[in-house]
Every structure is written in C-alpha cells, then in structure tokens.
C-alpha cells in the first residue's frame, strides 16, 4: 500500500526514537498539560496562526508517535486514536514540525513545565535522518566541515596567504607595529583562539579590536558554525566541534572566542563537556576589553539611533544579555530597546538552518511579528551578534521595506575604536 513503510523501516525508526528516550525526554513527552501557554510564544504562530505552528502542535506529532510505539494503549489498541504510525504522511508531518521550528526556545521560557520543544524536535530530526528525509543542504554543509578538518594541511598555506592579503584592511582600522602580524595565525603562546567564519567580514573588525586591546590571539583554521546541529546529527556535530577542540588543545590557548554566530557559540560553550580552555562569545570579549579599559570607544561616530536584536542562542539560551547593552552604551547615546527584549525577544526567524535552506517565503511570512517589532523601535540601525540573525534581519529589512541598516555589533565597535592620542567623546 502506498505510503506505508516496510516493517524493517518502521523498526529502524522506532529504534532511533528509543535511543533518544532518556528520562528528561520521557518527561517532555508525558507531561504536557495542553494548557496552551506556549501557543502565543512562537513567532511563527504569532505571524501565521495555525495550530501546526504552535510549540505544542509540533511536539504533538512526536508525542503521537511515542504513544503508538512506546505506550500500552498505542501498542495494543492504536485504533483508540491520538497516535501516528510511521508512514509517508507522518514523515511529512515530522518534517513540517522540525523545520518550521527555529529552535529559539521562547516557548520553553513560558512553559510551566519547562518543556524544551527544541529537544523534542531533536527526535523528529533524528527520525528524518533515519528515513533519509533531512534537508540535504544541511548534511552537505556538515560533511564539508568534517572533510575540511581531515584535509586542512592541504589548504593551510593558501589560507595563510589569504590572511596576509587581508592584513591591510585590519591595519586601516588599527595599525600594528612593523613586523607584527595583524592577523596572527598558528601563533605560539596565544591566549585566545578566535574562531571566525569563512568571510573576511568575520575576521577584519574582530582582528582590529583584539589588536587594539593588546590581546595575544591567533586565528583558527576552521569555521565556527556547526551545521550538523541544525540537521540534528549529534555524531557529526561532535566531529565538527572536535576540529576546534583539537586545535585549541594543540595551541594551548586559555580561551576560545567564538565569532558572532549563535549556534556555534552555544554548541561550543554548553555541549562539548569540560575542556582545558574556556569558551567565550566575542561579545563577551569586547565587553571585557571595555570594562578593563583595554579599548576606548568614541560615541560621536555613531550618530544614528540603534537597537539590538538578542540572538536566541546567545541571550535566551546562554544568558548573555547585559554585555551587548554595556557595549552599545559605550558607543551610542541613542540606544533603544526592542520590545520585548532579552529572553523575551522574538526570534529573527532564520534559525534552525532555515537561512542555509533558503526558504525565503516561509522565513518572511513566519517573521512578520519580528518585522513589526523592528519597525516599532523607530531605530535607524539594528545590530546583532549573530551571522545567521544578521542574514535574516537583512532579508526582513528588504522584504518589509523597514529602511533600517543591519550591522554586526563588532563592526560598530571597530568603527568606534580610538587610536592613542586621538580626541574622543565617552
């Protein structure tokens, strides 16, 4: 019969599901009281009010499979209802649930039981991988990262040359003494390993800031982002992160500073277990430099009003909320808050791999509430500390004609750096 999976396929998916069933996950699946408090939490539902776009609606797809295969009623009397068999329709529903969720966890903040829908969606994503239905672009990007780790020696010299070619842009912001590298690479005795992304925009401003602070730093060979986390492949996610762990351990650094990338930061900070180094977000490093008076910033260079978008993985899911605000108050007299903000901030709508997957129509429609929030701020600039958010905010800005400028926080800081002897306004 069309749409029915073979017994072997169903058994394999059931086994995958079972591997995810630890005590916490069973609590998430058994506990929901259907109070509905999470309904209004999701930016997708707030923008497109359909039940399937609620946190409980998404989790219910996984719960119905759980009931069918792991609860007495579902195993022996599935005709009583509230269950889902593994078939084509179920896998389609699983896909819609998993990849309409950005993993922002705003619903978890509101849930009286603290049910983590992102973790429930980890089961959905594992099932999709098992059924070979995951978004192939995300798997491809994860595979690329792993291959990069295996072949890094073959391309190291080219990368080093590219960094040398980029040094002029760094020196234009913050000069370094003759004979000193503006982008240290493979530097011995560095205290900080800065893990950037592929683009020069993720390197130049950060390099200038660290040089201005007199930091002993070195640049990683690898990109911070971990696409395996988006696709939900925990095995590959570990291998992607291991490249950076090995590099940091080999170089003997005290800290790994993660570029403005929420997912990269959250994974490295919270999910790799104890290491010999600390993991900090680049925004934390900038805040530290300001507090220790290692960099000075000129407020007069940012005359426009500016607001800040809290990236979900850095703010709500990692607690870094006051650092960016201290930085903004150091570079602007016209900082205005988005409402709501901090842990209550609306997700940008581009998380969970959606930006890499394209999905422009869904991303724009499902983030109308974000566009409304940005517009209501009245700010001329929206800044953030996450590349994924920056991409999504840029698309929203264009799609909804918001007329804002979207900036990385590190770029605003680099523009405000005060050279020794320069006059500036605090």
């Amino acid at each position: 019969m069309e749409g029915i999976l073979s017994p072997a396929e169903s058994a394999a998916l059931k086994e995958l599901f079972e591997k995810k069933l630890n005590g916490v996950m069973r609590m998430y699946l058994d506990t929901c009281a259907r109070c509905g408090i999470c309904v209004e939490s999701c930016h997708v539902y707030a923008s497109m009010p359909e039940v399937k776009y609620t946190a409980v609606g998404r989790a219910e797809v996984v719960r119905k499979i759980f009931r069918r295969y792991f609860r007495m009623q579902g195993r022996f009397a599935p005709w009583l209802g509230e269950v889902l068999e593994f078939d084509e329709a179920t896998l389609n529903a699983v896909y819609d649930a998993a990849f309409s969720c950005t993993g922002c966890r705003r619903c978890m903040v509101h849930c009286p039981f603290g049910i983590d829908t992102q973790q429930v969606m980890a089961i959905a994503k594992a099932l999709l991988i098992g059924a070979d239905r995951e978004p192939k672009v995300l798997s491809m990007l994860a595979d690329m990262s792993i291959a990069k780790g295996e072949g890094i020696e073959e391309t190291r010299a080219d990368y080093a040359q590219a960094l040398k070619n980029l040094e002029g842009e760094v020196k234009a912001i913050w000069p370094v003494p003759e004979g000193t590298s503006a982008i240290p690479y493979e530097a011995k005795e560095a205290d900080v390993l800065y893990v950037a992304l592929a683009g020069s925009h993720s390197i130049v401003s950060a390099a200038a800031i660290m040089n201005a602070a007199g930091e002993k730093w070195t640049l990683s060979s690898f990109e911070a982002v971990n696409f395996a986390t988006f696709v939900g492949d925990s095995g590959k996610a570990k291998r992607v992160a291991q490249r950076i762990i090995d590099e940091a351990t080999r170089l003997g650094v005290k800290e790994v500073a993660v570029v403005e990338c929420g997912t990269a930061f959250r994974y490295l900070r919270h999910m790799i277990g104890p290491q010999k180094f600390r993991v900090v977000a680049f925004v934390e490093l900038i805040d530290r430099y300001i507090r220790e008076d290692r960099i000075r910033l000129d407020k007069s260079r940012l005359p426009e009003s500016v607001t800040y978008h809290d990236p979900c993985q850095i703010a709500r899911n990692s607690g870094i909320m006051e650092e960016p605000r201290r930085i903004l108050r150091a570079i602007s007299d016209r900082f205005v808050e988005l409402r709501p903000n901090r842990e209550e901030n609306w997700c940008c709508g581009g998380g969970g791999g959606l930006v890499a997957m394209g999905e422009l129509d869904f991303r724009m429609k499902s983030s109308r509430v974000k566009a409304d929030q940005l517009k209501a701020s009245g700010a001329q600039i929206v800044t953030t500390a996450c590349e994924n958010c920056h991409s999504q905010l840029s698309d929203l800005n264009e799609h909804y004609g918001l007329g804002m400028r979207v900036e990385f926080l590190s770029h605003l800081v680099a523009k405000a750096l005060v050279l020794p002897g320069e006059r500036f306004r605090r």
Partner: protein
Amino acid sequence: MADYETKKTLDYKGLKCPMPIVKISQELPKVGIGDIVEVLTTDPGSLSDFPAWAKTTGNQVVETRQEPGLIKIYVKRLK
C-alpha cells in the same frame, strides 16, 4: 598558471555564511560534466571550504588564485 575555458563566472564576493557553498552546490549541476566554472570570492575560508566541499561531492577544485581583495577558485564538475 593555466588558462581555463570557463563556462561561467560566479560572483560570490561579500556573501555571508554559508552562501558561497550553498550557491556553488546549486550552480555547478547547471553546467556539463567536465566543465569548469570560475568563482570570485573575498572569503579566506573559501580556500579550504571549496576543496572540502568538492571532495565530499565528487567534484574538483582545479586551481585557486588570490590577490589582495580577490580570490578566484576554478571548480570542475566531475559528476
């Protein structure tokens, strides 16, 4: 340094993560097997990303060239 007969030039300068790799994976299948495309980029990381991507997808980076402000990557479709 060889001169290649390139089927097209793809301008990926200034794109954000992970768009250069996403776009090449969409564009390369549009040329014939054995054809070469030229990619223009400003991303230092692309010098490692493209060879790694080519390895995992069964294609080939035949050469990379760079100068301040510009990186050129020549990618051959093999499958």
